[in-house]
């Protein structure tokens, strides 16, 4: 059974931060087409703060995710602060007492994050939000696991589903948040939240795959 050692995996959050910071301009550019263009700026600000605080400290994944969730919730604000803040805090709680993370724990973690987001926001799949990335990603992971695929393969399928979920937002009309005021004019553009969510899930999954033992 493939598992990841929680204690040594905090660096995954540093790679997540790097991915967000590297894509700062891109995320703001797509946000600017249907929002006010500050998604990349705000996300990079929050993730950058976290990376500076945890880099080189050899934290557990649980501790690093908790730090990330807390910073997003207490220092970023906007819509993404609470949504991602809740997601990472819930992730952290699920693995807090777990030494070796297996696919079942990983699934529990994903579901807790998703439930947290659904409790605070009011979006559904198809509303052109980060849920269009997160929901299919979680479903793909669970499906792969129930079909008996390995943790490694399930993570690979999770990333593919996240990215196709992200791409699906191009053809969606925003039904929530600021972009919802645009109606059909929001068509043809990726949702910035769905895009950052795909980046985050990719780093989380690939970081986990690299550490499976």
């Amino acid at each position: 059974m493939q598992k990841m050692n929680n204690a040594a995996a905090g660096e995954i959050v540093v790679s997540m931060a790097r991915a967000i910071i590297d894509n700062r301009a891109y995320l703001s550019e797509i946000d600017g087409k249907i929002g006010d263009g500050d998604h990349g700026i705000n996300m990079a600000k929050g993730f950058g703060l976290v990376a500076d605080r945890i880099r080189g400290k050899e934290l557990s994944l649980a501790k690093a995710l908790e730090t990330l969730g807390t910073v997003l919730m207490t220092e970023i604000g906007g819509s993404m602060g609470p949504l991602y803040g809740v997601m990472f805090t819930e992730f952290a709680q699920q693995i807090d007492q777990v030494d070796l993370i297996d696919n079942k724990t990983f699934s529990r973690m994903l579901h807790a994050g998703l439930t947290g987001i659904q409790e605070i926001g009011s979006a559904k799949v198809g509303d052109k939000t980060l849920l269009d990335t997160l929901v299919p990603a979680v479903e793909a992971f669970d499906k792969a696991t129930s079909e008996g695929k390995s943790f490694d393969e399930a993570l690979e399928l999770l990333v593919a589903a996240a990215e196709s979920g992200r791409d699906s937002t191009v053809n969606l009309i925003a039904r929530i948040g600021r972009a919802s005021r645009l109606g059909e004019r929001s068509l043809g553009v990726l949702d910035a939240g769905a895009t950052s969510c795909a980046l985050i899930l990719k780093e989380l999954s690939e970081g986990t795959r690299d550490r499976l033992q």
Partner: protein
Amino acid sequence: MQRFVNNRDEVVEDTIKGFVKAHRDIVRLAENQRVVTAIDRPAQGKVGVVTGGGSGHEPAFIGYIGRNMLDAVAVGELFSSPTAKSFQDAIREANGGKGVVVLYGNYAGDNMNVKMAMKLAAKDGIEVATVVATDDVCSAPAEEQAKRRGVAGEIFMWKVGGAKASMGASLSEVRDAAQKAIDNCRSVGVGLGPCTLPAVGHPNFQIEPGTIEVGIGHHGEPGVRVEALKSASEVAKDMCQIVLDDHDLGSGTEVAVLVSGLGATPLNELYILFDTVEEEISGRGLRIHKAYVGNYFTSLEMVGATLTVMALDEELKSLLEVEVRCAATL
């Protein structure tokens, strides 16, 4: 465009620093550097009145802190909701033991952060009530009023809520008065030129020269139509029609009227608009009890204006009369 900025990522911090220094006789900075409160708060035995929102709308929101108005404000990034923690801390600062009412605008981020702050405040043992402003007519049709944005009508909501709280009213009485104020408000915005977030560096929407965006939101949310720019008088007539057709007020109703610039429109042009606004409102048999013309709720350097009309009853009229002392002129 040229700006007075030290560091484009610290515009909000620098704004707060200057504001608190300039108005130290009225406000103070809380321990949380994103929360500003009235100097003598909390007041024991008084319901606390709190709001919060993104920056870039000055004098909203911090300019309305003061006696008989807001007790504390949570300050967000430019055009971005304050954190749940900042709302929680603002609630704590305003709590004088009788509960706190949070009066804020209908935006996704604010809704989520206030919701989380309420949970946190409950853990602190503070009773919190909320009123969400939904006065912007063009942001959703009348049958979906709950989806409308909150705009300059929020100022009337704060003034009424603040006055009610200052009289020793209970939490539910303050909430009900503020709710009545915003329910009686209708607003519309028109844009002649876009604004730019300093950290982004370019406008994220355009208004072509010679055109006007009717129904524009406070962050440049698109309006209901773009048309050729007409005379001020014709623009004012359109604004009145949008607001008053949605309002359904009986002849003889007394109203409060607020015309606010969006940041880059000179005051003289706001008075030019008001000249026709007054004629249109009076022409419909309504009576203007009190008018406010100025930069009350801006959107960085957006060129444009908003019109808010609040229908009055005796209670709202007397609450509106309560004198306030805050940095913004009211």
